[in-house]
């Protein structure tokens, strides 16, 4: 896998909703094409108040004549993202990537269900765009279940509506769409999806992922989830980003979100 460490310039860093930003970075043409689900490590140059780089899912990628654009959709959640949100156009950042294991959609799949909770839409935005860009040789049906706390945190609503076949919107506070958790309308419709050619790709809070795993215990659709964990290096060395999974012999082991993930098979994840 080709990986790069390079400097990038901020092309734009707009607050798309309160506390949510879309960062577009301009990088040299040599930056490798990220696969949907992969992430990049972003660090700010020469900052004493942000030592470690921060991992972000790739939310978009465009190749231009002279350079490429990597898009990162993020929510301000702590010190690192607070500093990132202050970046202005033309400022430089260091980036390494693309890193990690992407979503893998086999040719046998005809139905893709995307499930996003809150900022979990970040990698699914790129996955959806990539699936649509693959063109006419595949007739995928794509259903999107998008949930957020409130209507203001439903990101990319219109683009998503245009790109997918069915969009189900949910809000915790009943401000739009189905009132309640994003897993509820999915659970109601789940048996309408054939077991043999459907794949769920999900990203969101752990509670959502856990609920998904319960639902899929009853109706075992294949499901890949993108997970998040604090990490120091993003390269597999620090062992900070551990997630408990079932190993090849069924035993509990910790795997690295940065290397064996961030995309995991949901049924491998251990919850206790």
């Amino acid at each position, binding site marked *: 896998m080709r990986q790069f460490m390079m400097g990038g310039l901020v092309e734009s860093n707009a607050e798309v909703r309160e506390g949510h930003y879309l960062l577009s970075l301009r990088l040299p043409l040599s930056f490798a094409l990220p696969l949907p689900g992969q992430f990049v490590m972003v660090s700010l140059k020469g900052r004493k108040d942000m030592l470690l780089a921060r991992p972000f899912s790739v939310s978009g990628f465009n190749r231009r004549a002279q350079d490429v654009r990597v898009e990162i959709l993020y929510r301000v959640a702590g010190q690192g993202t607070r500093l990132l949100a202050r970046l202005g156009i033309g400022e430089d950042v260091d980036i390494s990537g693309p890193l990690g294991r992407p979503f893998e959609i086999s040719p046998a799949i005809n139905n893709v269900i995307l499930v996003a909770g809150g900022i979990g839409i970040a990698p699914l935005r790129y996955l959806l765009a990539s699936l649509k860009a693959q063109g006419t040789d595949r007739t995928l049906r794509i259903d999107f279940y998008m949930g957020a706390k409130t209507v203001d945190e439903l990101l990319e609503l219109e683009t998503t509506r245009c790109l997918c076949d069915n969009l189900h919107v949910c809000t915790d506070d009943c401000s739009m769409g189905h009132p309640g958790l994003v897993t509820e309308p999915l659970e109601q419709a789940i048996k309408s999806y054939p077991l043999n050619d459907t794949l769920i790709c999900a990203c969101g809070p752990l509670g959502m992922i856990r609920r998904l795993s319960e639902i899929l215990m009853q109706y075992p659709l294949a499901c890949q989830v993108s997970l998040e964990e604090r990490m*120091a290096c993003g*390269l597999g*060395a620090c062992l*900070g980003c*551990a*997630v408990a999974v079932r190993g090849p012999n069924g035993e509990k082991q*910790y795997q690295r979100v940065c290397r064996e993930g961030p995309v995991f098979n949901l049924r491998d994840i251990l919850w206790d």
Partner: protein
Amino acid sequence: MGLEQKNVPPDLTVDIGSLKLKNPVMTASGTFGYGEEYSPYMDLNQIGAIVVKGLSLEPRMGNAPPRIMETPCGMLNAVGLQNIGVRAFIATKLPFLRQFETPVIVNIYAESVDEFSILAQKLSEAQGVHALEVNISCPNVKKGGIAFGTDPDMAAEVTRRVKDATDLPVIVKLTPNVTDIAMIAQSVEAAGADAVSLINTITGMSVDVDKRMPHLWNITGGLSGPAIKPVALRMVWQVVNRVSIPVIGLGGIMTAEDALEYLIVGARAVQVGTANFVNARAIPDIIEGIGKYLRKHQMTHIDELIGSLRSR
């Protein structure tokens, strides 16, 4: 003669006991995996020595997440010595490392003195291990680790047993979480240690005020990074003045200048840890910077720098 000398690159070689290094910059255990993770970013032959992630006799699962947290100018970690165990290391990781000229130092961890002895034996029989670093200083495991490193008699006992079990140079890695680190250093020196490395991380803690919970699953973790450098440097200086074996300095080295400080106070070599996470090319940058400094100060050999601290 003078003109010719100007073009000769300064000699960076140092000896740690019988171990000869082409330069004094090593990786710190637990920050460089088993080397493979960093090979896309540098030629591993450039490094003075590779100290691999701490190994135990049996594989260890490590602690539950969250395992790390960034703190001002540093980070806390509580990985809990997750590792593949010594057999898997020899079978699957050592062959990769043998391709390089860089000496491999294996950091070992055990819960009992007997286990330390077995580990040392197994690694001495393996081809491609050049020295052992005895971890008696890990703050993130329940048994062993720091328990051996805070008691001078226990530290000496572990050192003796490892020395008895191997002909490889033995480096003992010390914890800063003691009242008098130089006393522990003297104790392991008397027990036959070929060198000491210090410091391991400083035990710390961080709390999420919204959740009113520790950030780390393990509650406490080991602090590393620039925040600990002044403390570590002071300890290295103290130990250098109290032992005659080589001292390997580590703690918060991010740049060549940081490494130079350690060498000037008398460290024979340095280890770079957290900086690898921040910049995958930190080590080659530091080695280059040390060379530049020596040239600038017209030193032909790094020995002229080591321990050259002047009094005020």
